[in-house]
């Protein structure tokens, strides 16, 4: 039978009444809180009994203190005198239990209690939440602008989709926590003026809900990346996960080591923050640069090699694919796949300037509700009729074309006001949209080949 267990508890920092009730229930089941760590709350087995818990806030304490200060010890002595034993503490939050029946509470003046909570909240909980809110807001704003500017490529990137779950989730938690605390503090101050204590409340359902959503999104992201054979991205995810775990462990280890060595709180805080900052920068820079190097190296390849495009010049012209270079990029998500291919004559091959290139993008719409948006954006991308920056008479615009030869549902051809029809086509198939540019006028059998290879 286990004598210790660890649990992840989702309580707001100031929710002392919620924590007290929970710890009382745990003691009734035979588990007494023993330690609050970076990865959860630790309980030890006891004889099930009714204990009274009291969570109070000692604003002078800090998570970096090498040991309780003399003031804190004096406070503990006073608590001990009235039967209160310290169960665990985390920075300013001090959790006591009392075995006596009907003990005198530690806080008997509501005004002083609200002030102590607010002083402690300002020192840790509120500043951390405000910082997180700022970071989440900045990232949510960046994502929103990306989504507005280029919704198709943004939604076709599963890493971005994952971040589109994470940042709003963090934003929601921070906003709800800050708002709830502000409301509670206002009401508690008013109640305290009338000698009343106001109970606190947490929203564990919200925190668990957000945690489950983010975990689910993370699992989908990892599965999507791992099953699509994107080894670089899979490696990035694994490295980021391992790196984050290492940073948390090392940072917490250093904080504990400095605490054991009884270094002053200021030194401890500075060293811990420096180490955490340096490791975070190292991890981010290392992973990003490593991934970029590998990805940049693999973007230019030769057709016919391991990175075969769905449609090549060889499929359409009597050309040797080895005489061509190729640029491929793309992204995929649960909603959309987007891929770009450009095949160009290699300049190191004789007669390169007589050869013709081919360029196309394919947007595979996995979520049917996005089809209309993708079609609209594809049409907007090259259409210059509504663009005031291009002078009248020099604009390019889409005109209807015969979809039959392409085997498509709809087809459009780009026309320049000053140059007539161009060899650029937009083809709408059942679940995909193809934008293709030829450097020659395509023959009907070449159009049919495009439909066969790219139309799905």
């Amino acid at each position, binding site marked *: 039978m286990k004598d210790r267990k660890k649990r992840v508890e989702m309580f707001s920092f100031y929710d002392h009444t919620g924590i007290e009730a929970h710890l009382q229930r745990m003691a009734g089941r035979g588990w007494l809180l023993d330690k609050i760590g970076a990865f959860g709350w630790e309980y030890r087995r006891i004889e099930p009994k009714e204990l009274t818990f009291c969570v109070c806030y000692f604003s002078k304490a800090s998570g970096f203190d090498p040991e309780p200060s003399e003031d804190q010890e*004096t406070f503990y002595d006073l608590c001990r005198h009235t039967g209160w034993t310290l169960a665990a503490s985390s920075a300013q939050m001090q959790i006591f239990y009392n075995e006596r029946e009907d003990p*005198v509470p530690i806080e*008997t*003046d509501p005004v002083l209690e609200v002030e102590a909570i607010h002083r402690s909240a300002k020192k840790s909980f509120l500043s951390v939440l405000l910082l997180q809110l700022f970071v989440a807001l900045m990232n949510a704003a960046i994502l929103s602008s990306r989504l507005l500017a280029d919704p198709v490529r943004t939604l076709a990137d599963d890493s971005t989709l994952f971040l589109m779950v994470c940042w709003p989730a963090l934003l929601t938690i921070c906003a709800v926590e800050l708002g709830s605390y502000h409301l509670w503090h206002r009401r508690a101050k008013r109640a305290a*003026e009338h000698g009343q204590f106001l109970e606190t409340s947490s929203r564990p359902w919200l925190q668990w809900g957000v945690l489950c959503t983010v975990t689910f999104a993370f699992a989908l992201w990892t599965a999507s990346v791992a099953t699509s054979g994107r080894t670089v991205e899979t490696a990035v995810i694994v490295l980021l996960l391992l790196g984050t775990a290492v940073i948390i462990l090392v940072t917490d280890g250093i904080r504990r080591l400095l605490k054991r060595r009884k270094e002053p709180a200021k030194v401890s805080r500075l060293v811990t923050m420096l180490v955490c900052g340096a490791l975070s920068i190292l991890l981010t820079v290392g992973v990003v640069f490593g991934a970029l190097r590998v990805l940049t190296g693999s973007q230019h390849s030769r057709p016919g090699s391991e990175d075969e495009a769905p449609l090549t010049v060889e499929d359409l012209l009597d050309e040797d694919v080895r005489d061509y270079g190729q640029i491929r990029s793309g992204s995929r998500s649960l909603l959309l796949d987007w891929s770009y291919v450009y095949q160009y004559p290699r300049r190191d091959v004789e007669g390169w300037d007589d050869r013709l290139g081919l360029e196309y993008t394919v947007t595979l719409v996995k979520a049917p509700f996005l089809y209309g948006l993708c079609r609209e954006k594809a049409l907007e991308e090259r259409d210059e009729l509504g663009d005031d920056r291009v002078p009248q008479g020099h604009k390019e615009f889409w005109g209807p074309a015969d979809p039959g030869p392409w085997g498509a549902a709809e087809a459009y051809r780009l026309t320049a006001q000053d140059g007539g029809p161009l060899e650029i086509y937009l083809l709408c198939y059942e679940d995909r949209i193809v934008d293709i540019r030829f450097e020659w006028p395509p023959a009907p059998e070449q159009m049919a080949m495009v439909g066969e290879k790219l139309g799905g």
Partner: protein
Amino acid sequence: MPRAKFQTLTEQMFYVLLCLREECCGMDILDRVPAMTGKRVSVGSGTLYDLLERFCQAGMIRETRVEGRKRSYVLTDQGREVLAKEYGRICAQAEDYRAAFREEER
């Protein structure tokens, strides 16, 4: 309306100061207040810790002795004055109460 600092005293503040008419430490106060009031009033240890710190900062009490972590305090003249003023206020309230009921009885 928020209470102006120490303009009027709460019951707990009043009894803590009353205990400190003679030198005593925090633990003595924790025991004396319930004894003095027939357990009608008790001061929590966190509340007492805060009050002692605030009274010291306001110059109403002063630290007299430090033995290890045990600190003893006593009222200052300013503290006595605040306590006397509070006593006067309570007496005035009691007198008003008595006068009101005397009039009703007539």
